[in-house]
């Protein structure tokens, strides 16, 4: 459908930039504003934008549900795992100083891993919640935009087909 063309082209340009920005915020949380939560939300919103423009079926093909649920728990396990690794290496729970040789290097490593865990879980939870809301009311009526089959706007313009009847 032609009036979705601008949205689709702009979304294709923007979604990689949004993911890149989310990674930037995640790893520069030590040196500027940012950190795990903000990065997770921004990364999740990139996938939500994809699901809004290209349809829920395509989005569920990009991120299968099994992997998504595994990622939800993986971040929390990473965080707790860092704590237990610190205990295993001789310190207290979540004592980052014993993770590397130097105290300051251990702190850096601990904060990096912990923020990564936070970012993974927050991104996965945002995507899961949006898919749960969006997948609820579909039922037996069709999707409004016929974007389930084609992925190229140029092809759409040339073929002028309306996917599902």
């Amino acid at each position: 459908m032609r009036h979705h063309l601008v949205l689709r082209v702009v979304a294709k340009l923007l979604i990689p930039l949004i993911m890149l920005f989310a990674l930037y915020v995640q790893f520069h949380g030590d040196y500027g504003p940012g950190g795990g939560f903000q990065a997770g939300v921004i990364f999740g919103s990139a996938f939500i934008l994809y699901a809004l423009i290209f349809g829920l079926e395509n989005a569920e093909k990009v991120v299968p549900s099994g992997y998504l649920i595994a990622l939800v728990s993986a971040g929390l396990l990473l965080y707790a795992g860092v704590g237990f690794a610190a205990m295993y290496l001789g310190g207290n729970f979540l004592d980052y100083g014993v993770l590397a040789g130097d105290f300051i290097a251990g702190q850096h490593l601990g904060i990096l891993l912990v923020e990564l865990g936070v970012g993974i879980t927050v991104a996965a939870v945002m995507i899961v919640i949006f898919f749960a809301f969006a997948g609820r009311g579909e039922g037996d009526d069709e999707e409004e935009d016929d974007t389930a089959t084609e992925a190229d706007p140029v092809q759409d313009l040339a073929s002028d087909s309306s996917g599902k009847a």
Partner: protein
Amino acid sequence: MAWLGHFNYWIFVFLMMAGFYTVIARGNLIKKIVGLNIFQTSVFLLYITMGKVAGGTAPIVPEGGSEGVVYSNPIPHVLILTAIVVGVATTALGLALIVRINEAYGTIEEDEIQDIEESGDKKERAT
């Protein structure tokens, strides 16, 4: 009481009461959730204004070291960061419950739900 020095508390109380009124006076469930969000945001404003120091800057150490730099207090920022994220978790769960309530009762107005419940109770007691 110094009226002008406490103006952040005036704003906080006004916003909090606006959110509180929306929660208890409106019957629509989605408006209650919006009112709850306003209530939460007013509490965030209270903590952040309590942490601000005159002439301070954001609590990030600049490149050239930190001699003579006045910072704002970072501890309320940490507490409010956690509170914002917990707030969105609560909102998401509340909205999911509203969707299920709508599927079960067909409405999201509080008094209509109460009428359906009461008529169901009367039918049960009549048997």
